[in-house]
């Protein structure tokens, strides 16, 4: 069971790192998509949504091919870190970034699009720079959207395993995450272990989510 704990820790770490990185990557992408009138915009939107339509194992398979040590990215990573990108935690993170990107971008884009220029203009006349406006105005006004995006991303990263299994190789302590552990218990028809781990995961997730949503209950003034 200690290996299950290892898996839990690894999962939490993976989901947290992925969510954080996607917050950083997804915010500017979503902002551009919400605000731009560029003719390429629909194409970019479509590309962002694409990871969704491929079955995870298949996506994992292609990632495996694109990240292997002989690939451009894989060999670069190998040179830099002396480790392969596939079958490593870093590889898992890269894969998670790809398949969870739409979960971050779409809700953020919706939230950003709902902010009128009015308030941004008002803030600009109070000497707030674009970056300042983002943190002092956009962020608080889209709190609900960020919550949705982060929740979906985190949960999806916890739950996903097709991709992870493929690209991570299920190596204990390195790439064997919780979802794979549960999957293995089911595979080995060790139902009691699968049940208890699933139940634990469910209860934990439920408590975390309920707390997060509970904290969010105070309605954002005016954005009801």
């Amino acid at each position: 069971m200690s290996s299950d704990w290892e898996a839990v820790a690894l999962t939490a770490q993976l989901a947290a790192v992925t969510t954080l990185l996607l917050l950083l990557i997804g915010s500017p992408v979503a902002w551009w998509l919400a605000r731009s009138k560029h003719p390429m915009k629909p194409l970019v939107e479509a590309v962002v949504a694409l990871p969704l339509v491929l079955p995870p194992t298949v996506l994992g398979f292609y990632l495996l091919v694109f990240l292997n040590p002989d690939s451009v990215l894989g060999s670069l990573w190998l040179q830099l870190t002396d480790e392969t990108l596939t079958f490593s935690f870093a590889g898992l993170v890269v894969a998670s970034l790809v398949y969870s990107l739409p979960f971050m971008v779409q809700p953020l884009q919706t939230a950003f699009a709902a902010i009128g220029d009015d308030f941004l203009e008002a803030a600009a006349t109070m000497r707030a720079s674009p970056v300042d406006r983002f943190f002092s105005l956009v962020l608080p006004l889209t709190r609900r959207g960020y919550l949705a995006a982060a929740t979906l991303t985190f949960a999806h990263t916890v739950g996903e395993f097709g991709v992870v299994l493929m690209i991570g190789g299920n190596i204990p302590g390195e790439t064997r995450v919780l979802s794979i552990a549960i999957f293995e218990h089911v595979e080995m028809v060790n139902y009691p272990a699968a049940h208890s781990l699933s139940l634990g995961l469910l209860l934990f997730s439920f408590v975390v989510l309920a707390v997060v949503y509970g904290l969010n209950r105070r309605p954002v003034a005016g954005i009801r």
Partner: protein
Amino acid sequence: MVQLLVDVSGQRGRFEYRWQVETPVDGVVGVFGPNGAGKTSLLRAIAGLDRSTRGRVSLGGQIWLDSAAGIEVPTHRRGVGYVFQDGRLLPHLGVRGNLQYASRRAPAERGWFEDVVSGLDLEPLMSRDVHDLSGGERQRVAIARALLSRPALLLMDEPLSANDLSRRRALLPYLRRIANEFRIPTLYVSHSLDEMVALTEAMLICREGQVVAQGPTAELAQRSDLREVSDIPEAGAALSAQVVAIDRQTALAELNVGQHRFSVPSRGLTEGDEVRLQIHARDVAIALDPPSRLSIRNVLPAEVVNIDDPGFGTYADVVLDIEGAQLRSRVTRAAIMTLPLTVGQPCFALVKAASIEEHPAFDLH
């Protein structure tokens, strides 16, 4: 005293504008014009909120826009304060939050925050949510917010339209003091000539995307050819005067306007005060005989220098000279015929005390 230069063109939808303004902004400059004339568009162009604007904008030595040279300073670095026609209080911050949003980003000045808050009567509202404010309260918070950002140029778009008369009367001198004492050059949009005369030294008159007239308020308020354009209800005169005596019992102040004596309510005045008088043409009557036993206090010997008779309609304006100063009187054309009035004729101008409005410097403390 800074110079504001605006020479820009652009369009918003089918509305095209070509603003050409070059004026010192010493205190408050009024922006006047009918609905849809483009007053808001002018303010937006100056603030840099309209990205399609091309041309040149500068304030003092600061160049804000010079399309030819490829210069375009973004709004947040222009240091303009803006009171929007539609308020735009930030919805996620309360009243205090909105005020602090502005003041935190502005150059610090001790006591300024408290001054503005008390000057605009905002203490009771400080902990309110902006959604819980009444229309007038919201406008006051918006004004305070713009003042707190200590702008290089303050743009106000009908900031008092939702305020009741007594509040407006209280706020006008305050805004005037702000502009004068703190030397914040201000552009002020309003549909009210009273507000214009009370607050501004100079005025721009807009129509269909252009500035059709620009000059001292006192002068523009006289020009009858601008009346239709500017929707100035009636022309009048805005005169500078000085308080020479106060009568406590009758609460009247004796003023010198050039050589003449006016009496006006003494409230808030002290001897030596410089004040501005607004005399609507409609508040000036003309008598040919010296009137006796009349409630009208200010009776001045005058001479008719011009009769501005359109030749139709009910009214004509009579321009009177009172020892050098000019006053307009709006009378019925019937009166001109029956009195009759002719140019050069000596007469008496009757100015009702109650129609003289004074706006002394207002003290905050």
